[in-house]
């Protein structure tokens, strides 16, 4: 279990290798990577800046990760989230889950992302093609996704 906040990029293959290193009991590895898209609601985006609440962010992600380990049969997990200014196609977030069997790894990765989206204190500000900045609205679909875990 670990959580990292950073401005720099991450290497998905290297992160998996570090998690699995020396283990021969892992059967399934699921990763989710979120990327910056260059359009939002039909509008072109120049860049995106991620604001966050230092301290609470790490604490909340650790709580989410512990809850995932309580609910699912996991052998390991990792959450890496970037902050600062990012551009189209940049990686934003990485979630990795390890389990003996695939359904647990898939469910845990989806659980982590649903809760991260609605509970981790990050806020996105986008710069439109005209140079104007605006804060991204929270999506109702994300609250619904979190709600389905009961």
């Amino acid at each position: 279990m670990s959580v990292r906040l950073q401005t720099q990029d991450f290497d998905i293959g290297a992160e998996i290798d570090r998690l699995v290193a020396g283990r021969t009991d892992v059967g399934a590895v699921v990763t989710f990577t979120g990327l910056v898209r260059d359009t939002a609601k039909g509008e072109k985006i120049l860049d995106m800046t991620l604001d966050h609440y230092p301290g609470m962010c790490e604490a909340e992600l650790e709580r989410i990760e512990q809850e995932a380990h309580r609910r699912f049969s996991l052998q390991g997990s990792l959450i890496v989230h970037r902050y600062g200014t990012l551009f189209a196609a940049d990686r934003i977030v990485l979630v990795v889950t390890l389990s003996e069997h695939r359904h647990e790894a898939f469910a845990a990765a989806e659980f982590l992302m649903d809760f991260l989206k609605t509970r981790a204190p990050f806020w996105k500000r986008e710069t439109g093609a005209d140079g104007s900045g605006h804060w991204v609205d929270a999506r109702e679909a994300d609250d619904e996704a979190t709600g389905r875990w009961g």
Partner: protein
Amino acid sequence: MKLRYFAWVRERIGRSEEEVEPPAAVTTAGELVLWLKSRDERSDYAFERPEVVRIAIDQLHVKPDARIAGAREIAFFPPMTGG
């Protein structure tokens, strides 16, 4: 106690943090919001629709009815949009 503001709540209030000493009658996070609104126009604007602003006491999410007694740090921010 220390108050912290993030994202558009911070922009509307015009500062990222401040120290406040609310009167004893202010016992919950929701009452603290009402007290801040009554204080100045910028705070009133930031909490224009108090129901959309999220609250954390000492880095834990809370509801507006949470007691603020003993809190070191209370944060106000919009719904999260990470990931």
